[in-house]
């Protein structure tokens, strides 16, 4: 075992510079974006890279634009940017909602979407969102570029498919047009600045005329190593909107919890609490009248 002597720092201003350095560098590399996860880990000695490469000042990795029916987001785009970006609010609202609920203003001003993915926390708030948006993640290293669905990128708690010298450069997903509604809900231990005990994202296509759901995508987080989609539930939601839908949604979510974490300390709580998230999600997607008794919350 060789002794760890700390890391050096490289702060490129273009992707090209970055890739050149990566190609040349012999040793372990950590990419640093907002630092809201990494700096804590570096300080605690949980990560011991030889080189830290700052991606926070590379314009190509920052920003949101629309192209051919897809929204493209630079990996180093911050939550603050996402929270109010007009394109995200209009065509990927659930992502804006998730970004608004992350951490504090200070965290949102630094923390990035790419960092959220690469950290691959079981409770990462953008992860269920990106799953329901069917986002593709673009990865790049000096040898080339690959574009993978998020579900393939996430490999477990804190684990991704990224190779040691590979970088997330961008995230893209098909825009949600007018026929879709989307939403994000989160349950923590307080109103703001809290890790999710449960989070839930949904994209729903509604046929207003026929009062029915034609497509549903639902994902949950904090119920296992990674966030995941719920295909059975999604299928069951498709069809005519009826008064029992919420109940079905709740029951199937409870069942999801039972399947995911039975025997865990948090199981009895989460199987109940997820019903609250289910209601919140209905209110979010369909308005207060979609839950029994409306919403009396103060």
């Amino acid at each position, binding site marked *: 075992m060789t002794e760890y002597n700390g890391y050096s720092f490289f702060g490129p201003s273009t992707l090209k510079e970055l890739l050149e350095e990566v190609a040349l560098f012999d040793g372990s590399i950590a990419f640093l974006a907002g630092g809201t996860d990494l700096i804590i880990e570096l300080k605690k000695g949980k990560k011991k890279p030889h080189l830290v490469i700052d991606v926070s000042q590379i314009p190509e990795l920052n920003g949101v634009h629309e192209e051919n029916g897809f929204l493209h987001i630079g990996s180093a785009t911050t939550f603050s940017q996402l929270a109010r970006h007009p394109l995200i609010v209009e065509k990927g609202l659930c992502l804006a909602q998730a970004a608004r609920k992350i951490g504090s203003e200070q965290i949102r001003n630094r923390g990035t979407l790419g960092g959220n993915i690469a950290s691959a926390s079981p409770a990462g708030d953008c992860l269920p969102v990106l799953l329901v948006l069917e986002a593709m993640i673009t990865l790049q290293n000096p040898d080339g570029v690959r574009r993978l669905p998020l579900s393939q990128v996430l490999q477990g708690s804190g684990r991704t498919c990224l190779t040691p010298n590979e970088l997330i450069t961008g995230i893209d997903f098909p825009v949600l047009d007018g026929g879709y509604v989307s939403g994000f809900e989160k349950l923590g231990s307080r*109103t703001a600045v809290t*890790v999710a005990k449960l989070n839930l994202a949904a994209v729903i296509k509604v046929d207003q005329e026929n009062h029915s759901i034609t497509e549903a995508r639902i994902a949950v987080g904090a119920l296992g190593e990674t966030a995941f989609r719920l295909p059975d539930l999604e299928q069951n939601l498709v069809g005519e909107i009826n008064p029992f839908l919420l109940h079905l949604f709740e029951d199937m979510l409870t069942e999801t919890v039972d399947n995911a974490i039975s025997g865990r300390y948090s199981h009895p709580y989460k199987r*109940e609490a997820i019903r609250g998230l289910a*209601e919140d999600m209905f209110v979010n997607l369909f308005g207060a009248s979609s*839950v029994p008794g409306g919403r*009396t*919350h*103060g």
Partner: protein
Amino acid sequence: MGEEGQGLKYVGKNLPIHDGAAKVRGRIKYTGDLALEGMLIAKLLFSPLPHAKILSIDAKAALAIPGVIGVYTHENTPKTHYNSQVWFDGQEAMTLEDERIFTDTVRFVGDKVAAVLAVDERTAQEALGLIKVEYEALPFNVDPEKAFDNVVSIHPVQEPFFTKEFHCGNSDEVFEQAEIIVEDRVETPKVHHAAMEPHVCIAVPDHNGKITILTPCQIMYSVRLTVAKVLGLPFNKVRVIKTPMGGSFGGKQEVILEPLCAYLAQSSEKPVKLELNRKECIISTRTRTKVIGVVKTAVDGRGKILARDFQVIADTGAYTSNGAAIVSAMGKKLFRLYRVDNQRYQGRAVHTNTTVAGACRGYGTPQIMAISELNIDSTARRLGMDPLEFRVKNLVQPQDSDLSGGPSLGDARVIECALEGAKAFEWSEKRAREPLVGRYKRGVGMACSTHGNGYYGAFQDFVTMTLRMLEDGSMILLSGLHELGCGTITSTKQIIAEVMDMDPDRIEMSEGDTETSPYDIGSQASRVMHVCGAAALKIAQSVKGLFRSQAAFIFKCSPEDVVMCDEMTWSIKEPDKRLTYGEIARTVQRQHQLELIITETYRATDNPGSYGANFVEVEVDTLTGLIKVLDVVAAFDVGKAINPDFVKGQIYGGIQMGVGFALTEDIKIDPLTGIVKSDSFANYHIVNAPDMPPMRVILIEKGENDGPYGAKSIGEIATCAIAPAIVSAVNHALGTNLTVLPLTPERILMGLLPQKK
């Protein structure tokens, strides 16, 4: 006690805190901001095991690192035993002295094992990782109720190591005959003080063997006492200077870092800084005492309390600290809130292999009030009586006596607090409201409390001050005051300014410095405004008397004829001939070779109760178990608010702590490993701004006591009633009788399960 017969100019006014400008400018230097020349940095190694014998410590690799000055362990540091709570010589006889700078047997995860002293933090940190410790694990216990089995022996004493009983009347007999008896078991958690400033201390040796300690402390003479004892130094070779306080709440009341830091400075002959990080503060300093209480109340059918019985266990953690004192303190409060002719309190203290408990805002009162008040609530419920009505029937009244033999309750206006608070809160209307149907339930609850005003009746409680007027008329108060951020200095200036009739800004006050300050027993026991404030008033009156007699000499009139107003003085007979205070001081110096200076000792003469009643409305999300506090009305009998804004500041802050105590804060310890699970602000949640409820404050200011202008304490009582009021509101909302704090969402949902089925 106060100046008679005039409108008040400064007392009762909202002056801003004296060091506000320095604080908003970021210029005030807290201890952690100081870097002295040649200062070394110490870092601590903590025990990873809850109970173990240290077999060996190998520091060779650590010592080999350049920049490491030394590694200190139980093998090369003083073996003197002490108790961190002791604040006067002789007090150790009332408790156990079971702490040392470093121990050879670790007793909790977070116990101090070793220190590295190095030229900088980085080196110290690196060396820390290279110390090899070999432990022999011992059986451990983290459960206070199991401590009674005496299976695990933490110290060579039988558990419980301390028992205290208070009683009045004959409760056994009454319980035997009573028809209605309501019993509850209440549990309160270990809580982190969460002062934003972590624990820190700097010790500086001089060339004559004196050690100066810079520390944000609450009782400098307690620091001096223990450091002198451990280092074997005479008192005058230990100088303790109280530095700006970045929050304490009792957490920095005990002597935790100072003996070690002083020893390191002594042995290295260099200034040494010792600063903990947040995790270390949580796991290894002090906590609020965990308490478990079983309480029984016997009532008659009309709601008169006939008898009460309390069986209380205090978990003081791995070292005794204030384990004995807090058991007594809790018991005493019970005889000062309700009129109960037959009452027994039995408190017992035990050790567990957990973080050491100590003073924490309220000194046991929040815990004992939670136990008492939740049971008052369930008793009212059993009687089908409104809890307000039930309380008002039984609460103490002004000038009641303490049936356990303590000092008179004084002008105890808790009924007024309850009634005024209820009116502002619209208690009856809210209580009578139809319950909400559906997911969100609302409820209202209330609780009362009392707390003390110093040590009168228990220990010596006195303070010496020196007040002088300088040649320009400005003044200096020399005292051992400890400003903790509550506004002590400004309030004291207001008192002196009121007496002297001068601008408070023209009065300067040093804080505690054992070399220059007269004796003071420190900022503890809710004594500062009531006792030290009275001392300031008295000494100001004395200086005023001296001033007047001297001015009378100059004006050639009688002292009664001397008028003092806004730093101008004259004889009532010759209003045109006016002199400034400074001119008097100068003339007195020139003509009489006299300084306008007085040193006086003030002894506390009473210990009335402060009182409060808190009203709370909550909304409970029955699906997620999350609780939102919607409204708080807090009424307090403070005698007189010297500075109402400060008083409210204490109440708002006390409520912030109390909401956490009720809902989120809990130093959770893994029973399998003894490890603290909530060891950072990421998983130990104190209430942040979005979750703070609106708060309305009502102050009852009738002032009938010996405090300055009738002032009584507020800082501690501010956090004593809010938690049970919240829990009571939740129980009202849900129809439950939850009594284990904090009411986490998990506990709420589990509490609701029986109803759902």
